[in-house]
């Protein structure tokens, strides 16, 4: 394709990656959650579930393919659109999800699935004894961060008094800055902030209690493995992001020569990170639902012998099956319903405050840029 810029390639890869991730979500949720609806064991007829999953899967892939075409023909002209385009894909996938969600919710109401089901709830907490954060996963990211500053300090004298700080999509510099600690290490400082944020999120994720899926065997053990893997992955994220930041700094400092596809190699760690997150998420499943044989299976009298039972219905707390609102729940973070990972409790007063703060920060960032 003549004149395909690096930016177009990145955008296409991004759209494709996001589209694939979104399309397989139904295959990684808890077994008792079908398109954001809690379905008792007795009513999970496999045929109906599979049909809904495949419909969604194909629907999302179609939407993704359509979006790819748009990247080529329309989107790449508008620089600003490229940034929000991935969010647009998420929105489209959501509209593929919604009809499935409401269809099942309606069947559940009409056929009165809840009245006939069992009513148990199992909560899993981390106590102080088991709350050790697996810090080892944070080490690579910290090492890269240290390397960034060490290289920068050693190379500082060699940086010219004005140096390129922004590069166009074809790899050529299009903005220069006066040399100062602030400009030379801006990317480094951003890395520190991101690393700190990830550590904070990992801590919050590792400490948040959750309900396990009673209708899955060995749900407690699987839940614990899930918690551990999520925490470890979040601690690993800075390793990838900081590498990208390091490469970007090296480009700015003239240690990497600019080139047409340099930007692809700078973003490669981020794609590697996405691949890791997707693979681990798929193999683990939400709350460990895709784990076959948990290696930490306990044979104590406590957890052995818990029958696969339906859970107490908690649909009322989930708007459209994706937004959790529960004022009586003190948790900030709760496991997602449709996806792997965590989401915020929007019934928690602090969450609204946090969202506002983030919104303000994003506005400021855009304004600076």
């Amino acid at each position: 394709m003549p004149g395909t810029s690096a930016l177009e390639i990145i955008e296409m890869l991004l759209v494709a990656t996001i589209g694939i991730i979104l399309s397989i979500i139904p295959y990684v949720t808890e077994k008792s959650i079908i398109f954001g609806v809690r379905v008792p064991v007795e009513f999970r007829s496999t045929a109906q579930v599979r049909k809904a999953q495949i419909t969604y899967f194909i629907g999302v892939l179609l939407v993704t393919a359509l979006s790819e075409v748009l990247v080529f023909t329309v989107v790449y002209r508008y620089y600003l659109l490229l940034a929000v385009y991935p969010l647009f894909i998420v929105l489209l996938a959501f509209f593929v999800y919604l009809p499935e969600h409401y269809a099942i919710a309606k069947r559940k109401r009409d056929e009165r699935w809840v009245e006939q089901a069992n009513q148990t709830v199992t909560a899993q907490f981390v106590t102080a004894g088991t709350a050790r954060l697996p810090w080892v996963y944070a080490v690579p990211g910290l090492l890269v961060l240290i390397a960034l500053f060490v290289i920068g300090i050693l190379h500082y004298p060699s940086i010219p008094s004005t140096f390129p700080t922004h590069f166009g999509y074809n790899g050529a510099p299009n903005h220069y800055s006066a040399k100062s600690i602030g400009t030379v290490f801006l990317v480094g400082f951003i890395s520190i902030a991101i690393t700190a944020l990830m550590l904070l999120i990992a801590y919050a994720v590792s400490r948040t209690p959750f309900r396990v899926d009673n209708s899955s065997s060995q749900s407690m053990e699987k839940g614990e493995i899930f918690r551990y893997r999520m925490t470890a992955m979040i601690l690993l994220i800075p390793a990838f992001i900081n590498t990208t930041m390091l490469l970007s700094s090296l480009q700015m400092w003239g240690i990497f020569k600019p080139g047409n596809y340099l930007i692809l190699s700078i973003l490669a760690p981020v794609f590697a990170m996405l691949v890791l997150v997707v693979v681990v998420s798929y193999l683990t499943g939400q709350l460990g639902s895709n784990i076959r044989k948990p290696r930490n299976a306990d044979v104590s009298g406590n957890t052995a012998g818990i029958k696969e039972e339906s859970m107490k219905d908690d649909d009322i707390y989930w708007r459209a099956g994706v937004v959790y609102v529960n004022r009586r729940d003190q948790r900030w973070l709760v496991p997602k319903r449709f996806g792997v990972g965590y989401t915020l409790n929007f019934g928690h007063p602090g969450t609204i405050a946090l969202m506002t703060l983030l919104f303000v920060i994003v506005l400021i960032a855009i304004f600076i840029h």
Partner: protein
Amino acid sequence: MLRITVDHNSKEPPYKQIYDQIVSQISSGDIAMDDALPPSRTLAGVLDVNFHTVNRSYQMLRDNGIISLTRKRKYVVTAGRHDERSANEFFSREQELISDALARGFGEEEIIDIIRKVLTTRSKNRKGDY
């Protein structure tokens, strides 16, 4: 690791289920001495039960000297008061159990064996390996 299951179909009231499970996990070592239990609102929120239900369980645990409320308003597993009063209570509960067993024809040796068995089959505190 604290794990609580509330079965709303069970004959046992929820507060009793919570109480029993906490006691069981403390005795098996899944919850260690000086560990803090989650605040009652938090536990109630995650378990999706009434806040007063959890409070009732915690109160019972406090009354029996199993946990206590620290100055920082945390519920901490304490060494427990095995003072004279709780020793007497334990004694009379044991008396009932043993009288019942004797009446069913269990011999003294058998009873002691069963007590030993109970003590040794508590699960050890497992460190997870993943």
